[in-house]
């Protein structure tokens, strides 16, 4: 269970982290896309009765496209104004939430497991759905890692993250790179939604809890660091599960302990575990 939650958090945190690292945008709408994708999946399978595979194939590109469009038309024009960008993402996610509430009403929705049954591993029964989720998460993380490390696009992305101006001088189209970043990030959020939608319930404010966790993870691991996000995600998921299992009466405290872990790490290392402390840009 820790692995599943951790994996999903890791996917979300990587997306959030690369947007922040590249575009310096704190994207509060990140889990909003996660919510949208979960709703899309639910809508296509339960309301329209489309096959699950097709639903996934429609939802993923649609949400990714939405993310890219949102970046291109809403965030890009005001990128110089940091406060405005932050507020824009907040407004965006509120709009998503309200639209979903209007269309689908405030109900708790459930999706059936993508594959039924369970497997016994070392004497412990594991739901096949959890295994599948874990598989998706692992594959996607490896793919992202490969893209970032091996391809030309990955080099461009990392160069932009290091220094956008110099990257621009080296012939990398920074606005296009940032748009691709946003696309990758939203796609990751959508994949996370697909992986986890059958396990979690779907409701219009489902974005807040993961958002808090993602922020905690990203800060814990260090902003802009993919490795940090992955490790942070598993640490936080472990803390969460431990608290829920050891103190079942006070599951509300899981957030408290997760945040406590972050505060401890931050007070020892102000830049997170693997973060780079960005030099203050002095003009």
């Amino acid at each position, binding site marked *: 269970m820790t692995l599943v939650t951790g994996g999903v958090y890791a996917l979300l945190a990587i997306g959030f982290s690369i947007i*922040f690292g590249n575009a310096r945008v*704190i994207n509060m709408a990140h889990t909003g896309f996660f919510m949208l994708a979960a709703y899309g999946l639910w809508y296509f399978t339960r309301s329209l009765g489309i096959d699950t595979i097709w639903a996934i194939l429609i939802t993923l590109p649609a949400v990714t496209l939405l993310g890219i469009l949102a970046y291109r038309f*809403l965030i890009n*024009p*005001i990128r*110089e*104004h940091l*406060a*405005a960008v*932050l*507020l*824009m993402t*907040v*407004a*965006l996610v*509120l*709009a998503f*939430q*309200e*639209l979903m509430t*209007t269309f689908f009403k405030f109900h708790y929705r459930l999706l059936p497991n993508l594959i039924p049954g369970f497997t016994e591993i070392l004497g412990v029964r594991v739901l096949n759905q959890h295994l599948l989720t874990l598989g998706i998460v692992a594959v996607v993380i490896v793919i992202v890692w490969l893209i970032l490390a091996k391809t030309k696009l990955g080099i461009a992305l990392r160069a932009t993250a290091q220094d956008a101006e110099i990257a621009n001088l080296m012939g990398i189209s920074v606005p296009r790179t940032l748009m691709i970043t946003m696309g990758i990030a939203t796609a990751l959020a959508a994949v996370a939604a697909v992986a986890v939608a059958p396990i979690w319930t779907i409701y219009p404010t489902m974005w*807040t809890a993961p958002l*808090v966790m993602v*922020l*905690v993870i*990203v*800060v814990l691991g260090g*902003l802009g660091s993919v490795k940090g996000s992955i490790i942070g995600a598993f640490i936080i998921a472990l803390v969460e599960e431990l608290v829920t299992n050891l103190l079942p009466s*006070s599951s*509300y*405290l*899981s*957030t*408290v302990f997760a*945040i*406590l872990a*972050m*505060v401890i790490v*931050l*007070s020892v290392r*102000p*830049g*997170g575990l693997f*973060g780079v*402390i*960005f030099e*203050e840009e*002095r003009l």
Partner: protein
Amino acid sequence: MLRRLFKDFRWGVLPVPGRLIAIIFFVVLFIFPLITDKPSYMYILTISSLLVIFAVSWDLLSGYSGQVNFGHALFFGVAAYSSALLYKYLGWQPWATIPLGTLIATGVGVVTCFPALRLRGPYLSLLTMAFPLMLLGLVMAFKDYTGGEFGISGLPEIAATRLGEYYICLAVMTAAVLIMWKLTDAGSKYVRTGLIFHAIREDEIAARASGINTIRYKILAFVIGGFFAGLAGALYAHVLGGAGIASLSMTMSFRAIIYVVFGGIVSIYGAVIGVYTLYTLLQFLGVGQANFIGQNQILIMAILVILILLFMPEGLGVWVRDKIERECPRCKLSNGFWRRECRACGASLH
């Protein structure tokens, strides 16, 4: 005295449309009950006054001194809960619980700024965001004392009628806004905090190099922000008649950000404009009616914010000010949009 006030008005306010509008606005607020005193309108305006205090205090802390705080609801919620708890367990009346709640929130401001002082930029924002959520977890965990998700209710009102409440909150709001405006005024001759906050925001290292104890002023910013947000929170608890988990939620923290950035960050009037357009206006249009605005308030607010930001990324208030005022390039005095040369030094404004 009177003559001096008149002179200030004639030469300091009349030629600057922004100041004139601000004064007219406050006068209208004070005589608003003469136009209508429907309790529901009074209630909305009372809440707006408290939100103004809350939003302006966020602007002071995050806009002026640059310590961007994503968890401003912490101060608000702590004050609301502490005044509610003081009433519930000790039976104290509002005149005692409100100042004490405010003081406790101020103390919380001091405590939170210690871990926050080590951090910068986004790390600071995200850390501060965590505190109210932590407290929220504690509130839910100790349900027996705090009432859990239902909160504490049954608090006494601060005044017998809605009208009385309205005037108390309005007066407090006016005073708070004036004080915060003076504290952040970089050109002031008497208080240096405004100038120092600006310096810390623009370049902390340079400020420290100029002999400013930046740590002390950052703590001061947290204290002032916590004090006024706490004041708003304690009053809010008494106006509402109770303290609930909504006052500590992330939504509450974001509300401050939404109002301030919408109106224009680093400007006191921006926060006021933000609250009165996004909260008061929408509530007035949708209050008690089953019409479209009443039902989709958050959606409309979100879309309004998106559209306004696209065209005026600096905020509505700043955009309007730039349209109606012109700053003299030589002496930095603001002039009405109709003037061709500066009213003080005669320099051309083009």
